[in-house]
């Protein structure tokens, strides 16, 4: 197969994984290869990456797909040509017996501590020959990898039994260990392909593989960035005008003054300046156990919103509702806020399960007089009522009094209305969004501010 066809196939696989690649990108990648001496693997990969992967997320997917694709391409070609590696895994069980396991363990630990890529690769093959043969593999690659790793005694936590100077005493570097496991996995797959003389079906990447590693503070910063964008959009796009505000009002004073220039004839009509509407936001955030994983995300959204909007009131709820606007005003650090909310919001009553019906009626009695058509109500919750009455009628009256109502649901759309989720009872009165990543939050921001322009 020629290199162009290979590139096109690689492009197809990347597209299948959600990387946006157009014909122009593929043309570029061919042009790039014409300029480079790409017999070197790293150069080849970097050259392609510069034209095909144009964001950090894409780059990560590209790396994974690149490895998978060329591994499969090479193995496929090997099967076709009937190449069997001498000294491969299946070759000589006798030689394997002679490998000193203790020495091998020490050598591998040393290579891992140094992070020597080439040596790790060699040792992975050796380890497979030594241990992979000893007992027949389970046939499941992931299990075999772990079995071999255990047999080699490779652990990232410190093992004080070893003498000083041995890298295992301090524990092996985690990422080197992960790389070594990937190598083992690859060698096992190679052996399997050699045995069966066929390529296994290719597996699409899971969400876990493609997610970029990040920590809570970085996530918080990302949420803040999206909310800052939300505020800017709300400020620059202007807001929908209703009722009499749709028309301009003539400013009599300024019109008269301007008319002096034209001898008292009001040729130029001056209008009153339009005052931008200040959004007033009510946010209700579910903090019950069913949304534990999402509530950190939601609280950080709340935190970021408070940074951006002054006229905002926030509430947390489980069985009852409690206003936490003051907590946010008082505390600056996110950790202090989540601690304060966890300790003294007093929202759990008896069971600790969400009771939406009660929450709506309490919310209505709390803010009924303040709600007006200029207000926006945002609910962050999974709409799981635990079998209680959703009381959509109260929710409807709240939505009718407020200008706009949004629902952000931390569950994938697939699970909506499944089990005790009753989101459909509320959707007639509000716009619901799936929202559990900053990307989806961004989509919400777009929908919120973009639909009117």
């Amino acid at each position: 197969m020629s290199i162009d066809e290979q590139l096109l196939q690689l492009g197809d696989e990347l597209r299948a994984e959600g990387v946006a690649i157009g014909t122009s990108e593929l043309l570029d990648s061919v042009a790039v290869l014409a300029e480079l001496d790409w017999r070197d693997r790293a150069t080849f990969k970097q050259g392609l990456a510069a034209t095909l992967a144009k964001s950090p997320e894409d780059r990560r997917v590209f790396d994974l797909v690149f490895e998978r694709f060329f591994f499969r391409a090479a193995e496929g070609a090997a099967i076709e040509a009937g190449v069997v590696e001498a000294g491969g895994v299946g070759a000589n069980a006798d030689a394997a017996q002679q490998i000193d396991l203790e020495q091998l363990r020490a050598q591998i630990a040393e290579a891992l501590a140094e992070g020597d890529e080439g040596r790790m690769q060699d040792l992975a093959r050796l380890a497979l020959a030594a241990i992979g043969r000893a007992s027949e593999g389970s046939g499941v690659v992931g299990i075999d990898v772990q079995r071999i790793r255990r047999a080699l005694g490779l652990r990232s936590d410190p093992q004080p039994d070893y003498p000083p100077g041995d890298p295992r005493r301090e524990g092996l570097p985690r990422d080197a260990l992960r790389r070594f496991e990937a190598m083992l996995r690859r060698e096992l797959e190679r052996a399997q392909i050699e045995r069966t003389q066929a390529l296994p079906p290719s597996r699409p990447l899971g969400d876990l593989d493609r997610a970029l590693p990040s920590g809570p503070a970085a996530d918080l910063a990302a949420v803040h960035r999206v909310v800052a964008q939300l505020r800017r959009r709300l400020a620059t796009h202007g807001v929908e005008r209703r009722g009499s505000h749709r028309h301009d009002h003539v400013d009599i004073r300024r019109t008269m003054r301007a008319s002096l220039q034209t001898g008292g004839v009001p040729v130029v009509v001056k209008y009153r300046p339009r005052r931008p509407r200040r959004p007033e936001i009510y946010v209700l955030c579910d903090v019950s156990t069913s949304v534990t994983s999402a509530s950190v995300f939601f609280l950080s959204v709340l935190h970021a919103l408070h940074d951006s909007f002054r006229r905002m009131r926030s509430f947390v709820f489980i069985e009852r509702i409690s206003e936490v606007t003051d907590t946010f005003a008082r505390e600056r650090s996110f950790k202090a806020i989540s601690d304060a909310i966890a300790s003294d919001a007093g929202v759990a009553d008896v069971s600790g399960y969400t009771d939406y019906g009660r929450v709506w009626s309490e919310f209505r009695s709390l803010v009924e007089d303040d709600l007006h058509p200029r207000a926006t109500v945002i609910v962050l919750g999974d709409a799981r009522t635990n079998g209680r009455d959703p009381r959509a009628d109260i929710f409807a009256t709240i939505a009718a009094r407020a200008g706009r109502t949004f629902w952000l649901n931390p569950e994938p759309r697939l699970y909506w209305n499944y089990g005790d989720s009753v989101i459909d009872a509320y959707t007639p009165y509000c716009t619901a969004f799936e929202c559990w990543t900053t990307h989806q939050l961004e989509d919400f921001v777009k929908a919120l501010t973009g639909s009117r322009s």
Partner: protein
Amino acid sequence: MDALPESVDAVAEGLRAAGYLPGGSTALVAYLATRLHKPVLVEGPAGVGKTELAKAMATYLGRELVRLQCYEGLDEAKALYEWNYRKQLLRIQAEADGAGWSEVQDDIFGEEFLLARPLLQAISATAPVVLLIDEIDKTDQEFEAMLLELLSDFQITIPELGRIAASSQPVVLLTSNNSRELTEALKRRCLYLWLDYPTLEHELAIVRLHAPLLPDTVARKLVEVVAMVRELDLKKPPSIAESIDWARALLLLGASDIDAATFNETMSVIVKHRTDIELVAERVGLALA
């Protein structure tokens, strides 16, 4: 020097001579940019040397650097061109009698009355330049759309004058801090370079280059501590620029070792958020003590 670089290694060598240590695929992408005449989109966290790369490229290629700093509300009058309105007025008044309308009109929309802003400057320069469009993510999408013509064809259309094609091929670098997703159309026209925090050895070399007088042991300890700080979950991890600042600060203070006391005094050079400072003081301060 007008000749294009011969190989990737030549570019790496040249950038090194210009005081920039390229890492990973930086030299490769820079080489491709000069050979393929494609703009490069450089992304990465703040302070990893995106702008420096453009400066080093200009030094290495012996070209002038034209820089356009982007900000919210940047429009074409400030980025592309503007008519020199005062000069046009003067011209009309000087010609007040005698000259016909059409002559004056032809006249006042000539290149003489055009104020070239960075982008027009870059493509109308006789000698090729390096054009740096800094922090493109700060502008609006409309501005990006306006750039497309320039980036793909190296030309600008001015309604009154027609098309101005580039007289020389500039090397174009766009930088972005990833604060907003750029449009696909823009990305499609660019090569992509992701600059990340450097490896330990690489950063050590950079620090040595910028603070050659700092003792070796201190420099090594410094990059190790910075790497340790980056491992923590911070709002704003320290960048290369901050490691260099720190190295210079330590040099000024004449520190011969980084111990807990020195670290606590000078920490504010690399960590700049109150919550971050608390976390770093707690974790790294303990590790050093």
